[in-house]
């Protein structure tokens, strides 16, 4: 367990030193929200679509975070060193996952704030509880898929365009669930809170499935090629 | 026959693409196999 936290701390420290999340990813994500407004050109439509737009922007930005998570390793074979040391591959996965979850939580909170400010979204107390639950479960799911598929494309040429192509179809259920649940939390006419909670159940299943899959596949993905 | 256009389109795309894939595979296989002796081919 200590190893998991050690790996997570290492990743977060590297990220903090470079401050890429702060300086590049968050501005990019907010920019996407602004561009949606420009493209859709209707405040009524924006307010209705806010939930979906937040999670779309989150998905795009999350892939940037994940790419970075693996690029820092491949620069000098750090990942190989990490794995040939005593740390078990699944623990490395959990450590990386934890670091990505941390960064994505910041990202999504900022995006939700952006939606409140830019799209005129309002959240009441009951909606807030649903919103927090949705954000946490969805972020874990997003992070697990990202960390797993990041490992699949790690060190491959052209991985920057591969990762979106591979990860986005897999993230579709997450996008559907997170958007509907967030829509309910934002007080939509068409989806009530109960349905929103049902969607978070799907999000939880998604998170569990891909976290488990990630832990299981990490050894195969990172073992030295015979 | 009614709607013949779409029906023909569906079938020609189906049969045509299968045939194309088959022919392309056979052609490429023939040129590559010529450079390799039979005892190296795993299926022989």
């Amino acid at each position: 367990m200590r190893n998991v936290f050690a790996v997570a701390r290492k990743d977060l420290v590297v990220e903090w030193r470079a401050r890429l999340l702060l300086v590049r990813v968050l501005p990019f994500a907010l920019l996407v929200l602004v561009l949606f407004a420009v493209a859709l050109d209707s405040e009524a439509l924006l307010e209705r679509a806010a939930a979906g737009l937040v999670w779309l922007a989150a998905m795009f930005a999350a892939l940037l975070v994940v790419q970075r998570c693996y690029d820092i390793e491949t620069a000098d074979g750090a990942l190989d060193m990490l794995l040939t040391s005593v740390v078990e591959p699944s623990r490395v996965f959990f450590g990386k996952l934890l670091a990505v979850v941390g960064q994505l939580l910041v990202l999504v909170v900022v995006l939700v704030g952006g939606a409140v400010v830019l799209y005129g979204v309002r959240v009441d107390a009951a909606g807030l509880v649903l919103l927090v639950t949705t954000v946490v479960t969805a972020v874990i799911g997003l992070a697990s898929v990202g960390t797993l598929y990041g490992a699949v494309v790690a060190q491959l040429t052209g991985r920057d365009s591969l990762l979106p192509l591979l990860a986005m179809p897999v993230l579709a259920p997450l996008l559907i669930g997170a958007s509907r649940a967030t829509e309910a939390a934002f007080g939509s006419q068409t989806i009530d809170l109960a349905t929103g909670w049902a969607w978070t159940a799907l999000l939880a299943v998604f998170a569990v499935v891909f976290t488990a899959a990630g832990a299981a596949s990490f050894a195969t993905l990172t073992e030295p090629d015979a | 026959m009614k709607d013949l256009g779409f029906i023909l389109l569906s079938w020609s795309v189906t049969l045509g693409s299968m045939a194309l894939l088959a022919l392309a595979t056979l052609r490429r296989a023939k040129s590559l196999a010529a450079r390799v002796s039979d005892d190296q081919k795993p299926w022989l």
Partner: protein
Amino acid sequence: MSDTTPTPHGAALLGAGTARRSLGTATPATRIIGLLTLATMTWVVVSAFFITSPDVVQGDSVRIMYAHVPAAWVAYLAFVTTAIASGISVVRRHRTLGFDRVAGASAEVGVLFMGLALVTGSLWGRLTWGTFWQWDPRLTTTLFLFITYVGYLAVRRIDATPERRAKRSAVLALLAVLEIPLVHFSVVLWRSLHQEASVLNPDGDVRLDGLMLFTLFSGVVAFTLGFVWLVIHRQRLQALVDLQGTVGLDSAIAARATEAVLR
């Protein structure tokens, strides 16, 4: 003195002497399968166009069904084949490259049939429902399956060793087994929000008489035979391609060795 006789190694590579040379990737078995495929396919086309009668409700557009349903069937068959072959190639410790090649070949052929299922389904839907596309679970899931496999093939094209290619793509194929049911389930839930009437499939309201059923069944058989033929050949083709990688290196080494002798 010039020496133009190849080294023993070179002779083996050139297949000179007693080594028999067959054409490409064909064997007696594949010739039989190929002929059967052509025969059944001909029967299906003839029956679909000339022998079966138009549907009571849909008219002639039902003739697309005889291409669409078998194509969709083969698409899912290919998905399962790739998944099983990938599973075996991950679990076994030796001789896994053969299974990896089967997985890859099945995916290549599968992507073709997924695309065909989508195209024929779209055209059929246009004739029966007036729209090229519906966001119903079955179509949407097939679309996601198609995109997923395009991604899988993109990873296989990466310039990497066969072992690395095998490992990465096998993990992807197995993850797809998790992904596809999740996608299907969430799309079902999603569309149920819109209170649609029962899932709209063109083949939902076709009444199949004996001959139509038989033609449909023949179509499934014909397409499956075609799938098997294509996968066998593409798998062997991949083996040849991989061999080129090593043979090329070997012949280069042999050539250098001969060069050194000649000097």
